[in-house]
């Protein structure tokens, strides 16, 4: 009996693993893009914003002016319990609407492109094309991304958002409302520059204390970006 169960397990395992990886990859990539479409950085004394309705309106209006972003990024993943970190760098492009290209160049190569409801990921060996519509989790995440792009993230039903500000930046503290998102994030802190409403940094805080921070530098805004960059 034990052997029989083992044989069934061996037959089923690859399919189970494939399914699990497919679903989790889509979700994880989506989260990453959410983070990428926002922006943040560092903080000083942040105060809750004084006029919420006015900020909301202004955020939506100003976000519309951001047509494209080209910049470098530095990503730092910190495993707090293990006192370990890994730093990676690369290039980031965003083009309105719904087009993102993120290219990790050091210390490994990894490319993610999102274009509408399609996504491509490529490492140094192979590439995967994913249709967001075929993946409910990714579809869910796609909604959030669109909210970010359209400046309606403050009305997102996936996160409760608290907004703070200092003299140079806004800080959006996004706390997941659903269990699915809460499994990955304690919160996401997006810092947005007041001068142009572009993302300065993104900090993804995980439930067990690990943290990933992406810092965007050398930004060029609203230049012409060829659609070919986002071709899948």
């Amino acid at each position, binding site marked *: 009996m034990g052997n029989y169960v083992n044989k069934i397990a061996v037959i089923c395992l690859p399919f189970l693993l494939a399914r*699990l990886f497919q679903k989790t990859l889509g979700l994880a990539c989506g989260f990453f893009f959410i983070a990428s479409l926002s922006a943040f950085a560092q903080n000083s004394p942040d105060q809750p914003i004084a006029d919420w309705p006015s900020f909301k309106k202004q955020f939506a209006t100003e976000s519309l002016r951001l047509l494209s972003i080209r910049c470098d990024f530095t990503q730092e993943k910190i495993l707090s319990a*293990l006192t370990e970190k*890994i730093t990676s760098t690369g290039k980031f492009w965003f083009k309105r609407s719904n087009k993102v290209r993120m290219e990790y160049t050091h210390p490994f190569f990894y490319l993610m492109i999102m274009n509408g409801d399609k996504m491509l990921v490529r490492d140094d060996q192979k590439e995967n094309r994913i249709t967001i519509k075929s993946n409910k989790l990714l579809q869910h995440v796609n909604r959030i991304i669109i909210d970010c792009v359209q400046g309606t993230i403050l009305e997102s039903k996936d996160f409760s958002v608290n907004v703070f500000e200092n003299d140079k930046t806004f800080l959006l503290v996004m706390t997941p409302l659903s269990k699915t998102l809460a499994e990955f994030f304690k919160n996401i802190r997006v810092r947005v520059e007041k001068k142009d409403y572009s993302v300065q940094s993104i900090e993804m805080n995980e439930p067990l204390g690990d943290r990933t921070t992406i810092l965007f530098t050398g930004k060029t805004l609203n230049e012409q970006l060829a659609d070919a960059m986002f071709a899948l």
Partner: protein
Amino acid sequence: MRCLPFSLSCFLFFWSCAPDYHLHTIPLDSGCASKIAPLPMTSSWYHASVDVTGNHWSGLVLIKSMPDSSHRVVFTNEAGLTFFDFGFSKDGKLKIYFMIKKLNKKLVVQTLGKDFELILGEPFRKGPLQSWDTGQEVYFGVKQKKETAYFITSKDCASLQRLEWGDARKRRVSVKISGPGYPSPEKIELTHHTFALRIALTRIGQE
């Protein structure tokens, strides 16, 4: 000609049942065993490439050697999100610190646990060792409940060739290591022989 499909089926049946191992027990050469036995890995980051039944995925793996001689294994995607974090205590017991719900299934945990147990050489610290000869290679192994963990060297005991999980007849999993940096080698390639799962790890050099 009419018999060809039947003959082919018979051939494939018997071929698939053919044992991978033709091991002959030999006296343990303790000197060779202690020279070749996998050393505990030091802390390193790896870029992971996973192929499961035609699907390809990647991410980052941290293998961390802890001060108490235990090991931790953490898998994140490139964007930094943690998918699982487990470890092996000093006595080799598996402990899950974190695993996302979609991966937290008994079968997945067992498979990943056994895969990294072999990569880390945990079974060989539990002993006792036995040894076998195939004519070309020498197998050193530690028997567990249903399977045996092997580390394999050439007849002249020159270097570690690979690691394997297997039962009495069949090879289940093999691990090949290559490149400089041992005991945290540049490349680690784990292959399952009973289904299509391959995990390739390439060490990441950080500045």
